[in-house]
């Protein structure tokens, strides 16, 4: 089994026309081709490398990670002498990926990384998530290295990034018992010694892979402060052995991934970047990367759920025929596929935006950007800022819906441990919770609604050339856009922030349906096989948006009081 080659949709998204720009920027016009024997010499060479490496990931996922998923889920990690011991399969997965040089995919070559753009890395996460949604958490924490690469000094980069690229794992220590969604309340204490070095004291909770080799820790460096401006970012190196893993949470899903409670006892740590910038700058960057990662995880889990549904419904016979032949079942499956395709196209659209702006950001440290480049960086950064929460919010909800529907198709069998959908269903649940719940994604994405950032982007999609036979779909989307714009006006004109918050999720979802509808339509313009999903998704989105518009039109600021009763 190869999870890359058995899914032609991946190659389709990998070969997007914008990749040429992304690769040329990322490779600085192939400046390293004579410096590293594995650097590409031109665009085609780079793309060919991505495909070949994704093929390896697909093979490892199909042959090792997916077959291990069941035993990893059953066995889970454990604490031995205050340290985490992974399940046997987890360790085997890590070893295989380490040997295949897949632990530092986006890191620069000078730190032993592969220097891949975000898009192929995201695709790897998409594939790994399909194989085992719990495992992708451990592997995907190489994102932390990306943050070190962005903000740490050269000396730190040399010491830590090389270790990550060679297979050491990371952790991102943010959450505390009293600081979850509200990270401004973080209390873990950072104290500076007379010689300038730092030590950390306190407790972190719900830390994924908390015993990882290299941890990024958010801590209060400014004694007496209470808000986000008193927080700084630190690197803690596990080799100091000054952190105890007090407990591993017993979770509903992603059981292979150790979620730890950590106790820091005079743990030596290094400051990353500038003091006081921990939350306001670095965590924001870290979170955006992580949210893109959850988008990829959601898509991968959706893919797994969809495949399980198709395979079960094709084999299971009732009333003399496979159940996939009954409308109640094939409708569910077709909708699953539409949501999956919509999620995936949004994932890579977002990934490309992140790629371009981040690469420009790195280039700006090497030389001054031209004004055109600056404008382009700004454009894509803004797009990434709004698309990332939209992606995370929408795709994680779709992932849950697909897992639910897939299990439903399995009937009683799906409720048993005998089929992998039981695990997939449990694993899916976390996607809409961690790295910011769907409700928090809405808080970030709503500015895309109120500033018209989504609307402007929708107008751009609307202006794209399209085959004549696809015009009717565009007409539907134009209608949806008018309805959306008008609904947004109504809510904004009420001039009541609470009323806006109340309808925020509905508005964001309306924008999401239109954006994903357009993306699927543009995909169909290039490849006919997306037409089914485009048709189903656009019409489903039209109905969904109509319902939201109706609901909003029939509501008023006063009415909030009814809902509020429960809060009093």
């Amino acid at each position, binding site marked *: 089994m190869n999870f890359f080659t058995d899914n032609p949709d991946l190659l389709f998204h990998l070969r997007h026309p914008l990749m040429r720009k992304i690769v040329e920027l990322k490779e600085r016009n192939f400046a390293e081709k*004579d410096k590293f*024997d*594995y650097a590409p*010499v031109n665009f085609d060479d780079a793309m060919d*490398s991505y495909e070949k*490496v994704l093929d*390896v990931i697909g*093979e490892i996922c199909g042959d090792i990670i997916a077959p291990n998923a069941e035993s990893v889920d059953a066995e889970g990690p454990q604490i031995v002498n205050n340290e985490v011991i992974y399940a046997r399969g987890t360790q085997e997965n890590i070893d295989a990926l380490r*040997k295949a040089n897949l632990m530092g995919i986006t890191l620069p070559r000078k730190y032993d990384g*592969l220097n891949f753009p975000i898009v192929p890395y995201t695709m790897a996460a998409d594939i790994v998530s399909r194989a085992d949604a719990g495992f992708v958490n451990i592997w995907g924490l190489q994102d932390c290295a990306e943050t070190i690469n962005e903000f740490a000094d050269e000396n730190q980069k040399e010491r830590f990034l090389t270790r990550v690229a060679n297979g050491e794992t990371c952790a991102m220590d943010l959450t505390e018992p009293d600081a979850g969604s509200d990270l401004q309340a973080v209390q873990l204490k950072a104290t500076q010694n007379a010689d300038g070095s730092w030590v950390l004291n306190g407790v972190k909770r719900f830390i994924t892979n908390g015993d990882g080799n290299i941890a990024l820790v958010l801590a209060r460096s400014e004694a007496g402060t209470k808000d986000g401006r008193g927080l700084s970012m630190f690197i803690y190196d596990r080799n100091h052995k000054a952190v105890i893993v007090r407990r591993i949470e017993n979770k509903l899903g992603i059981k292979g991934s150790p979620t730890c409670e950590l106790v820091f006892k005079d743990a030596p740590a290094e400051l990353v970047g500038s003091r006081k910038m921990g939350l306001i700058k670095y965590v924001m960057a870290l979170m955006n990367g992580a949210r893109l990662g959850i988008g990829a995880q959601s898509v991968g889990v959706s893919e797994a759920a969809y495949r399980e549904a198709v395979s079960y419904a094709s084999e299971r016979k009732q009333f003399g025929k496979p159940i996939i032949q009954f409308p109640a079942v094939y409708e569910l499956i077709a909708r699953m596929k539409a949501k999956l395709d919509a999620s995936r196209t949004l994932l890579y659209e977002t990934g490309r935006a992140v790629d371009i702006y981040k690469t420009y950001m790195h280039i700006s440290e090497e030389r001054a950007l031209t004004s055109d480049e600056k404008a382009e960086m700004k454009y894509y950064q803004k797009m990434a800022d709004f698309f990332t929460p939209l992606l995370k919010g929408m795709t994680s909800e779709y992932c849950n819906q697909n897992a639910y529907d897939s299990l439903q198709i399995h009937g009683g069998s799906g409720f048993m441990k005998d089929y992998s959908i039981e695990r997939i269903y449990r694993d899916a649940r976390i996607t809409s919770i961690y790295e910011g719940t769907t409700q928090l994604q809405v808080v970030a994405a709503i500015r895309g609604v109120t500033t018209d950032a989504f609307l402007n982007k929708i107008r751009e999609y609307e202006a794209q050339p399209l085959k004549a036979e696809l015009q009717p779909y565009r007409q539907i989307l134009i209608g949806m856009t008018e309805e959306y714009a008008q609904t947004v006006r109504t809510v904004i004109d009420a001039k009541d922030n609470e009323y806006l918050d109340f309808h925020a999720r509905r508005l964001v979802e309306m924008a999401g349906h239109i954006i994903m509808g357009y993306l699927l339509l543009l995909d169909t313009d290039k490849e006919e096989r997306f037409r089914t999903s485009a048709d189903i998704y656009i019409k489903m989105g039209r109905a969904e948006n109509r319902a939201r518009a109706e609901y909003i039109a029939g509501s008023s600021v006063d009415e909030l009081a009814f809902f509020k009763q429960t809060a009093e």
Partner: protein
Amino acid sequence: MGLKIIVLAKQVPDTRNVGKDAMKSDGTVNRAALPAIFNPEDLNALEQALRLKEKYNGSTVTVLTMGPGRAADIIREGMFRGADSGYLLTDRAFAGSDTLATSYAISCAIRKIKEYDVIIAGRQAIDGDTAQVGPQVAEKLSLPQITYAEEIFSAENRKITVKRRLERGVETVECALPCVVTVNSSAPDCRPRAAKLIMKYKHARTATERTEQPNEYDTLATARPYLNIREWSVNDIETDAKWLGLSGSPTKVKAIENVVFQAKESKKLTDSDSEIEDLIKELIVNHTIG
């Protein structure tokens, strides 16, 4: 001290995933319907070689394969996993070789390579399942051989220590180097292809490949000699024509039969102890069990 290791590998049709059209109507293998893969036990052999290379600084692993031009894929596959270089032995003169002619050609190529400490091969190939080529190569080169190897513990002081997996247990044996080792599928799986090695070696090609399908990356080989896969024809090694190809192959296929397994007879038993006992006795008598 570094070891010079030769891995013998074969490109085979993937007989593990046989579909309906795997055999032609004349009873021969329909190679077009089966993907060509690295023979599985040769991958186990390669892994043992790579472990030795990691253990003994300065060691090199060279993949030697015989086959048509496309068998160069096997050498690239080997390099993607950690082999340093390879030789493709290819010539019409080798066509139709049975195990005897194959081992003759391979042993001649190894003589030409000249310097080696250990030759490691898979126990057998999944297309023929003969398990003869490894041992025959050893005989032709007058080398000691260790078959059914599962793990190579060490190879130092001109001595190799190997665990063998036999039908009823394991044994650990020692042997003087150089020697031939053939490896079982019970040995550890081969490591995955490594991203950096793929990118480093993906443009490695034979001279014939470059002539037949030139591409823009061929010029890279001038500055990067490791991108040239050495290709030997019958003229590059010292051979006696009568031992080669069809004429050197005493094996003659008389006929091939398509066998379809199906249950010829079935029996229904009740769950009484006596009937089950009778069945057990019957199975012991006809040697199905026991």
